[in-house]
């Protein structure tokens, strides 16, 4: 169950070009959030940035009763959010959405993240304590590379790519996944990021016969399944229907969703 909460901001920090990390005190979220879930955040007061913005839960510290979100400034909502101050409160609803499927059967896992899609994967890695974990993270350029140390320590091996080669492998991250996929034989691949990347990972997993979960994005209204705006196709390409990212997702089995155009 999710709740409307007003929680205290413990810290806010710029960690890369236009990317901020915020730690929020919340007993409720830290006790209840599962990897892959998100919070729907009122980024400013009153009618500024009217709708809430969905932001993934990136990390949870159950002992301190806090959770972290990491976000990139894209428009007015995230801009306002970045201006919040330590000690003030943030109005949010959470935890929302369906989490990643975690099971002890998954002995060797891969997470594949691109851009702002990497954030929910950190919490996922941290929660899968027993598995052998490969992390693949793709960025536009070194300017946007963040949290590598944390991903490093939360995984058994970390591969990084940038489009322009300014850090790590030059090219797209799925190239690196392709190399490993045969070698290691993952039990499951989890992916979140830009649609072309997700589509590619889905295809690769399917060809290799590996289970795969994808986390999707869509513009949202309510975040709680009431307004039906956040549609995504589920089913088969020739026999689909619209499900909803906020409630049926954001995490889906890759063979459940139709990822056209």
């Amino acid at each position, binding site marked *: *169950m*999710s*709740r*409307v909460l007003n929680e205290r901001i413990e810290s806010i920090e710029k960690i890369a070009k236009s990317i901020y990390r915020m730690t929020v005190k919340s007993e409720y979220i830290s006790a209840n959030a599962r990897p892959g879930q998100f919070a729907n955040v*009122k980024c400013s007061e009153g*009618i500024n*940035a*009217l*709708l*809430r913005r969905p932001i993934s839960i990136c990390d949870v510290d159950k002992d301190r009763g806090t959770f972290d979100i990491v976000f990139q400034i894209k428009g007015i909502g995230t801009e306002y959010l970045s201006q919040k101050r330590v000690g003030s409160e943030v109005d949010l*609803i959470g935890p929302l959405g369906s989490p990643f499927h975690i099971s002890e059967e998954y002995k060797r896992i891969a997470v594949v993240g691109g851009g702002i899609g990497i954030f929910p994967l950190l919490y996922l890695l941290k929660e899968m304590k027993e598995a052998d974990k490969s992390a693949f993270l793709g960025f536009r350029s070194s300017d946007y590379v963040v949290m590598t140390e944390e991903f490093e320590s939360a995984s058994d091996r970390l591969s990084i790519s940038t489009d322009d080669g300014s850090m790590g492998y030059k090219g797209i991250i799925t190239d690196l996944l392709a190399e490993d996929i045969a070698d290691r034989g993952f039990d499951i691949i989890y992916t979140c990021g830009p649609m072309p990347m997700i589509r590619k990972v889905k295809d690769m997993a399917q060809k290799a016969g590996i289970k795969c979960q994808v986390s999707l994005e*869509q*513009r*949202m*209204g*309510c*975040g*709680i*399944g*009431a*307004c*039906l*705006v*956040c*549609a*995504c196709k589920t089913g088969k390409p020739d026999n689909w*229907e*619209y499900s909803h990212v906020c*409630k049926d997702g954001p995490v889906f089995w890759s063979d459940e969703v139709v990822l056209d155009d």
Partner: protein
Amino acid sequence: MTEKNIDLSVDIAGLKLENPVIGASGTFGFGREFADYMDLNRIGGISVKGLTLEKRQGNKPPRIAETPAGILNSVGLQNPGVKAFIENEIPFLRKFSTKIIANIAGNTIEDYCSMAEQLSDADIDAIELNVSCPNVKKGCVAFGNSTAGISEITGKVKKYCKKPLIVKLTPNVTDVKEIAVAAEDAGADAISLINTILGMAIDIHRKRPILANNVGGLSGPAVKPIAVRMVYEVASVVKIPVIGMGGISSGEDAVEFMLAGASAVMVGTANFINPTACVDVVEGIKNYLKMYNHSSVYEIIGKLQLN
């Protein structure tokens, strides 16, 4: 004055609401989605997501764009169809005292009549004729933007409708008064307004409309002054009750509509930002009545004095 002296109940053409606050169609799902956040017994009614004869998938996403103090939506009536609604949703909603209003939309007048007939035998409390949805290619708003259209559809549906018939008007017209009068004359038991206002938002970087459907319906605080004006206009020309909506997010907003002549209000977009918006509006109305020593909502309905 003690709280128990304040009577919030209203009677909309036989639809008896415990209080004048209704979740607006398309913004309140089938009620379930809000049950985590509030006690559904605390709101007067729920107008469910617009129903069509057959299940519909709705429009391509993105279906929403934020605009200054408002949103554009182009859901396009995604819904499970009237039969599935009757089977799967009414039983849940009936566990609560809140009244059930079935919002219906169709491609043809026959669709509307058939739905009205089926719903008249179902366990619901009123039917809201949506002839004002701007987000579907065929039907719907085409019936709602002329006196001839509204008159014909209202008259025909009325024949099949055994529940109070609320006709929901579009604001996208030159003169909403004449449309309202035509609906009243054709047998509407009540009027609700406003539906969304046709709008467009453009992603200047992609040089394309944000909505996949290109245009959508504007709702939220931005439209409130337009909605209040239209409710006032309509309430001053019809004798049947008027249900007001458009940008309501507080008790104060609701009181504006009630002074302007609305017997009840619907809360839409505000539910997205604050899932307890409906009960907050109920409390806000109550506080206002208390502050001015009113004992019933009827003491404010239509009590606006012009300057």
